[in-house]
């Protein structure tokens, strides 16, 4: 046993960004470097943690040594490791991007604005990362509430960072949504504690019984998470908040923050309320997802602005995640559906980050993001357009991207359990996604004079977008190990015989 | 069951609910905030009643005191902005 094997890696993914939050707040000049170093550090710690989980299965860690029920436990299983990998990898790319983004103004008036944004972006982002990682590792539902708040505060402040009217209004709405969602969640936590005298996920899992208490707790927590996760029809706040934020922030919000709520919902649904949920409720959530896919795509098809299009695409893509609930109803396809949606989260995170970064580059170079007038500028930025296209491939679900593998598994779960309606929906959603992605790419091929960029786009900004979009595509070719890892710590109900 | 206690509980609870409603229905924001501070102090009483003196202290100091101060200063800023902006902003849609 070396130090590498025994080190408490899971702590570092929380302590590092927390400390970095302090340091970036104190030392502004060094903030970008601290930020990049921290995200790299969290990649290392996640790698260490992943090795431990692969080697010896899911981990538990009792903070303060108290253990359940008095203390708070952390836990790391396949799902949380994958989520941590996601936040770490996206984190590195966005940090590298942001390091250039916030120091690239040509005009002096913009320089002052950027200095302000730079000063606050880094500490807020570091706390966001701490909140995310803390959330992915928490095994305690009250602690989940605390991390949700940490995440929410950071996300809202980041969303308002652009300072413009639309951004501020969107951030205000986001804050109200986020706080009320958290309160719903907290009420659910309170009811569960009242009934079962523990807030530990695993301890609760053995105790929760169907009944008014469990139902109301589920209803409260689920609605809180659905509104925070912008699930149709509670998505109204998301597009303006995501589209009007500075580009790296849009990427973080769309790729990571909304996933946090979904992650908790996934945990609760399959681990905590496994005995409580009924097929009808599962179908209801699935129908919300269907609404999200159709409505979000339809909206994306009509948006005049690029970043709004990308944001509505997030609404639509989140709909797919909700399909896990009806698709996992059959014991035979539960594990496939579960793996599908987790892989979907990963693929979407990479693709959406890449897409927002690419869209940001285009908007930066053009000085606007009206889709109708992008012809010349897209042809001046082939790398960013390529990133957008590759990310689009993953969003559409074309092979060999990560999105394809996720949709493959979703379809497999749907067809395997004879649910043709959902299968059709998945395919229709793909075609709609193709339509709105092509709305943008179209402009890269028109016959126009190549425009001179209004602002030069630094190479790091183009490459970080491209790197992530490549990753989104390559995810399709390296799904086997993550999916294998997911079985470590997958809900017990899913280890039914006859699984492939 | 101590009847007096029950009466006290009922009165306290009803007062809390009524105050909460008044806080949010008050047409005058200032009145609403003042009522909210009163609501906080009444909550502190409820915390004491429920054997939670730590929370009572926190409520009095944080929930009612600091939050009240925050809200009042927020309102003051709102008023100042309105006063300074009224001539031009009034025309905005």
């Amino acid at each position, binding site marked *: 046993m070396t130090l590498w094997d025994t080190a*408490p890696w899971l*702590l570092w993914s929380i*302590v590092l960004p*927390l*400390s970095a*939050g*302090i340091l970036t*707040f104190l030392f502004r000049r060094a903030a970008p470097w601290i930020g990049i170093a921290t995200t790299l550090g969290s990649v290392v710690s996640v790698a260490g943690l992943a090795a431990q989980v692969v080697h010896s299965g899911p981990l538990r*860690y009792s*903070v*303060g*040594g*108290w253990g359940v029920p*008095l*203390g708070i436990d952390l836990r790391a299983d396949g799902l949380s490791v994958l989520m941590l990998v996601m936040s770490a990898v996206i984190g590195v790319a966005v940090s590298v991007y942001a390091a250039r983004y916030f120091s690239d103004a040509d005009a002096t*008036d913009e320089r*002052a604005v*950027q*200095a*302000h944004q730079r*000063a*606050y972006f880094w*500490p807020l982002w570091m*706390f966001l990362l701490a*909140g995310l990682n*803390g959330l992915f590792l928490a095994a305690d539902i*009250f*602690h989940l509430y*605390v*991390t949700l708040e*940490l995440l929410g*505060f950071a996300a809202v*402040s980041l969303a*308002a*960072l652009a300072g413009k009217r639309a951004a501020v209004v969107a951030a205000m709405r986001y804050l109200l949504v986020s706080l009320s969602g958290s309160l719903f969640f907290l009420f659910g936590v309170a*009811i569960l*504690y*009242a*009934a079962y*005298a*523990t807030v530990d996920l695993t301890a609760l899992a053995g105790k929760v019984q169907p*009944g*008014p208490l469990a*139902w109301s707790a589920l209803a409260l927590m689920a609605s809180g998470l659905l509104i925070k996760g912008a699930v149709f029809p509670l998505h109204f706040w998301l597009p303006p908040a995501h589209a009007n934020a500075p580009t790296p922030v849009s990427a973080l919000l769309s790729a990571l923050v909304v996933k946090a709520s979904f992650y908790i919902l996934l945990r609760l649904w399959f681990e905590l309320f496994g005995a409580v949920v009924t097929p009808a409720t599962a179908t209801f959530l699935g129908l919300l997802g269907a609404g999200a896919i159709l409505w979000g795509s339809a909206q994306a098809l009509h948006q005049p602005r690029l970043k709004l299009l990308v944001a509505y695409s997030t609404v639509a893509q989140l709909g797919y995640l909700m399909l896990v609930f009806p698709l996992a109803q059959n014991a035979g396809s539960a594990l496939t559906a579960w793996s599908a949606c987790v892989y979907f989260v990963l693929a979407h995170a990479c693709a959406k980050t890449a897409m927002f970064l690419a869209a940001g580059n285009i908007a930066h170079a053009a000085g606007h993001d009206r889709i109708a007038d992008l012809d010349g500028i897209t042809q001046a930025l082939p790398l960013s357009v390529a990133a957008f296209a590759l990310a689009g491939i993953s969003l559409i679900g074309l092979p060999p991207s990560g999105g394809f593998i996720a949709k493959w598994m979703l379809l497999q779960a749907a067809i395997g359990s004879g649910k043709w309606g959902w299968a059709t929906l998945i395919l229709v959603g793909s075609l709609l996604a193709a339509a709105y992605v092509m709305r943008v790419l179209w402009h890269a091929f028109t016959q126009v004079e190549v425009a001179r960029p209004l602002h030069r786009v630094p190479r790091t900004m183009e490459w970080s977008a491209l790197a992530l979009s490549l990753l989104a595509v390559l995810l399709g070719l390296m799904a086997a190990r993550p999916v294998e890892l997911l079985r470590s710590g997958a809900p017990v109900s899913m280890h039914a015989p006859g699984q492939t | 069951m101590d009847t007096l206690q029950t009466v006290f509980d009922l009165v306290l609870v009803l007062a809390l609910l009524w105050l909460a409603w008044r806080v949010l*229905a008050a*047409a*005058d924001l200032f009145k609403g905030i003042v009522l909210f501070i009163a609501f906080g102090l009444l909550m502190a009483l409820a915390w004491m009643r429920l054997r939670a*003196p*730590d929370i*009572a*202290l*926190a409520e009095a*100091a*944080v929930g009612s*005191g*600091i939050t009240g*101060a*925050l809200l009042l200063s927020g309102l003051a*800023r*709102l008023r100042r902005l309105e006063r300074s902006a009224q001539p031009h902003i009034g025309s905005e849609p």
Partner: protein
Amino acid sequence: MNAPDDFTDDTRLTPLRLMIMLFVLTLAGALGWAVCSLPAYSSGLAVTALAELSNSGVLNPVTAAVLNYRGYDTLLEIAVLLLAVIGVWSLAQAEPPAAFEPASPVLLSFLRIVLPLMILIAGYLLWIGSFAPGGAFQGGAVLAGVLVLLRLSNQDRAIWSHEVWLRFCLVLGLSVFIAVAVGVMAGGGKLLEYPRAHAGMLILLIESAALISIALTLAALFVGGRALSDEDSSRASDNGVQPE
């Protein structure tokens, strides 16, 4: 006192409001029904918490829960406090003190008596928190009250004009908390697993640092914007970030 904007909220019962009300009433009814099915007696975790009290380093079970059993929650909560200040500072700049009228001599002499008393109370609450109701949050709030009063009487320029010092004090609570939490691991313990002999002392250390940060944080929230001498961003505020 009644500017027109207050009345944009009419409280008449439109069909939409009626629907919202019905929805909320249904929710409340369902929750109430569920609550009625709670067991009437449940010691929750009280028994365990009290049994472990002697190992926690403090005598007040709530403080034990806040800073020991569930100290990890509190660690992140202190981070939330800091984050709130950063968020507020990223949004707005503090209004110049000139906005406040100069304090009257009566008020000043009143403050001269009250403020030291409040500081004493804050310290007392911090100290007493270990064995009786009280603690860093309550004490911090009282101390924040001091700062608020200073602000209102326009006497706080000294506090908000030392940018570096201010930031240092704001992060103090979280820094000490993290340092202790990680530091105790040097002895082979887990995160936040205080050695039994030093638990009380370490908790007091954390609380003292937190007290200062909490007080400053709450006061900063009251001020509602970043400090005036904030160099990098005060320039920015002239250009679009704060179009006033």
